[in-house]
């Protein structure tokens, strides 16, 4: 098996000994980033002019340029890059050579595309029976929609997310930063590692088929069960939610933006309401909570059935909360919520996230060198902290074909003359 030669590595990164060939565009690049940051040797294989998703903004200093895409940077950390046109006969042959020494191939082409090039799972598993191929597509490898196009908005719609997002007097909507293929890539990473674990046990590779649509369906909490068990369609409600009969706010305006808070009853209210009401009393702003000023946690569980509240009751309470929150900033409310143990959080902007005290305290943000720019750029840090093995960004996202020489000459033994020929022929 290909990975045997590298089995002796004693590095503490879980996936250090594995090589991944990453053929994805924005339809799957998050998967290989996850593997790369866990230590896998990921080689991004780009078209000779670079992956088209290098043109997705935002851009560094607002300069639209394939080497300046912050989107591309964020999701291609710790990878190396070579250029290769796998549609040419030489390109296909080189790709197969790479597969011989690889453990995992991740791709996001239309179903059937690689098969037509003779590079599908069946062909590759003949070259390397232990190879794992992960295919990330809008709808999966088979089925009535398999050849359909599904950019993010279409994925949000068909995955059920759009219907439950937005205001109910306007069209459904999506999150303003595309999410559908990040979900697909995220699940693809889990599926790939499951296949890798099985290969460690059995020596066998396999094909992992990931559907973006089905990945989005797994974000719906219980929308499907609401229909299945109660014939009720969950719907969008802007800053409110329908909890039982009345609509309750889940975001409240405050002095400089919004905070997330919900009244509810039961356990959740029993935690939050007594300390919040005490705070309002201290500031002489009890409003509609006058009669509850001495209630303890138990009273909120026993006396308030969130599902049986009337809209008038909820509106009165929320009116008083809005008046109170209007006197405070997000930060003031959040810091007091921590001190008083109230389930209240800021509705964070991108700036709030960068300023977030907890993230700073936990050293979440990491600096990554961009030697070509002569500066360090700050990136989102680890999604998980592990004691025994480490997560880390080993290098910034690669430039187009940055590692051509390293791989083609250094590893595959091509001469400089071959390289010139392949370049002129549009292969690399």
């Amino acid at each position: 098996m290909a990975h045997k030669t590298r089995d002796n590595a004693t590095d503490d990164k879980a996936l250090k000994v594995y090589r991944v060939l990453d053929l994805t565009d924005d339809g799957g690049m998050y998967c290989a980033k996850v593997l790369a940051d866990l230590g896998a040797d990921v080689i991004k294989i780009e078209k000779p002019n670079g992956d088209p998703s290098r043109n997705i903004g935002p851009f560094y200093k607002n300069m639209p340029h394939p080497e300046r895409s912050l989107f591309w940077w964020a999701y291609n950390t710790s990878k190396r890059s070579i250029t290769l046109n796998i549609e040419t006969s030489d390109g296909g042959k080189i790709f197969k050579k790479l597969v011989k020494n690889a453990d995992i191939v991740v791709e996001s082409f239309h179903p059937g595309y690689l098969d037509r090039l003779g590079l599908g799972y069946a062909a590759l598993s003949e070259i390397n029976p232990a190879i794992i191929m992960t295919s990330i597509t809008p709808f999966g490898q088979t089925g009535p929609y398999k050849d359909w196009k599904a950019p993010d908005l279409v994925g949000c719609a068909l995955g059920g997310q759009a219907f439950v997002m937005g205001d109910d007097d306007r069209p459904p909507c999506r999150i303003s930063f595309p999410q559908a293929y990040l979900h697909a890539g995220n699940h693809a990473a889990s599926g790939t590692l499951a296949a890798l674990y099985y290969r460690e046990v059995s020596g066998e590779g396999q094909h992992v088929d990931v559907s973006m649509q089905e990945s989005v369906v797994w974000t719906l909490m219980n929308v499907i069960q609401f229909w299945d068990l109660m014939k009720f369609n969950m719907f969008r409600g802007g800053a409110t939610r329908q909890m039982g009969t009345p609509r309750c706010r889940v975001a409240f305006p405050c002095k400089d933006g919004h905070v997330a808070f919900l009244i509810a009853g039961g356990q959740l209210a029993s935690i939050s309401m007594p300390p919040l009401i005490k705070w309002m009393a201290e500031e002489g702003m009890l409003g509609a909570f006058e009669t509850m000023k001495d209630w303890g946690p138990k009273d909120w569980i026993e006396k308030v059935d969130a599902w049986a509240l009337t809209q008038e009751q909820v509106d009165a309470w929320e009116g008083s909360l809005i008046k109170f929150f209007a006197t405070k900033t997000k930060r003031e409310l959040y810091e007091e919520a921590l001190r008083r143990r109230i389930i209240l959080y800021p509705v964070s902007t991108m700036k709030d996230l960068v300023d977030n005290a907890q993230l700073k305290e936990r050293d979440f943000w990491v600096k990554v060198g961009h030697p070509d720019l002569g500066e360090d750029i700050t990136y989102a840090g680890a999604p998980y902290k592990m004691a025994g093995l480490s997560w880390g960004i080993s290098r910034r996202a690669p430039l187009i074909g940055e590692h051509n020489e390293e791989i083609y000459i250094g590893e595959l033994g091509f001469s400089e003359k071959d390289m010139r020929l392949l370049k002129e022929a549009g292969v690399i």
Partner: protein
Amino acid sequence: MRTPRLPKKRQAKKRRVFEGVKIADFTWLGVGPIAMKFMANLGATVIHIESQTRPDITRVSFPYKDFQAGINRSGFFALYNDSKYGISLNLKMPQAQKLARKLIYEWADVVADAHLPGIMDKWGLDYETLRKEKPDLIHIATSLQGKTGSYSKMPGHGIVGVSLAGFSEITGWPDREPAVPTGALSDFITFPHMLTALIAALIYRRKTGRGQYIEVSQLEASLQFLAPPIMDYMINGQIMGRVGNRCTNAAPHGIYRCLGNDKWCAIAVFTDQEWHDFCRVMGNPEWTKDHRFATLLGRKENEDELDALVESWTINFSPVELMNTLQKAGVPAGAVHNGEDLLADQQLNHRGTYVTLEHPEIGPHIYQPPPFRLSKTPHELTMPAPCLGQHNEYVLKEILSMSDEEIADLLAAGALE
């Protein structure tokens, strides 16, 4: 205590990824239960440990079968916990804590926990204690903001987590308040991260024999999905706002009203070819020949008018009909599915997204497998979610070989509540 229903013996030996991996699952709510359910679907043996004295909120929340509340009747809990054995332990009691440690020392490879940081320590179930007895144990914990830091012990859940993590602020319309995404989105970004970290640790343990402690902060996992706009603020000082359904390089790009009540279809036209195909499907009406709509730049400039014109056409069709016609012509389009539509969706049904299992109290109802398919080791949903304490007897007798007297003592003391 309920009469335990002993699981059926599996017939033919199937190839399952995590055959032999044993997980003591102390998690609740969303992230932990779903991640461990996926492990169970891939062949791990998972024992879900919970308590009647502090029931999982998903057990006591809608949707209940036939609107009838009951601790074993919620589809919310069921969806996240199929294929697991369930036991009830009141971990506030020393006897129950001892039993939990016995289960871990004698049986488990993995401990999963989703309690507020500090709770497992209080119960003597923290990694430092457990590793002394079981050095190769993997302990994976998840919470809203991680184990360390000033805010780590602040209570929370995904319904506010989605706002803390930045998603609400960028969902909805520029002239309106943030539209908080329904559900607990940050949970659903975090659980696959938790699963990935756990499998990586299992691979590492196979190679090195070493266990480890892993913690997954819901906030930190979720921010991976906003990394580019965060960098846009850090580098360019731009703070992303809400843009409805607009997209910088496509028009029309929106969700348009269709025939019927609250029926909609998404249409996303990026290239000239897609625009020509779209016009052709509409029958090339006069307005499409207007020079203002001939180019992407023109369409972006006149997008409000464009959207109104597109909608005057889409309103004549049902979303599915419209989607089928447009997709056949090469134009990206998708019906906006509600819960009912999702269950009827042809592709999802083809793929096997819905699995019906017979639950002892709910009856037959729908569960969902992981969204990836492994060609040689298919997932398996082996049993419905457990009723509270359903497998107490099976776990105590068969797995821990405890005697009837020992079990009676625990029962009498209330440790199995």
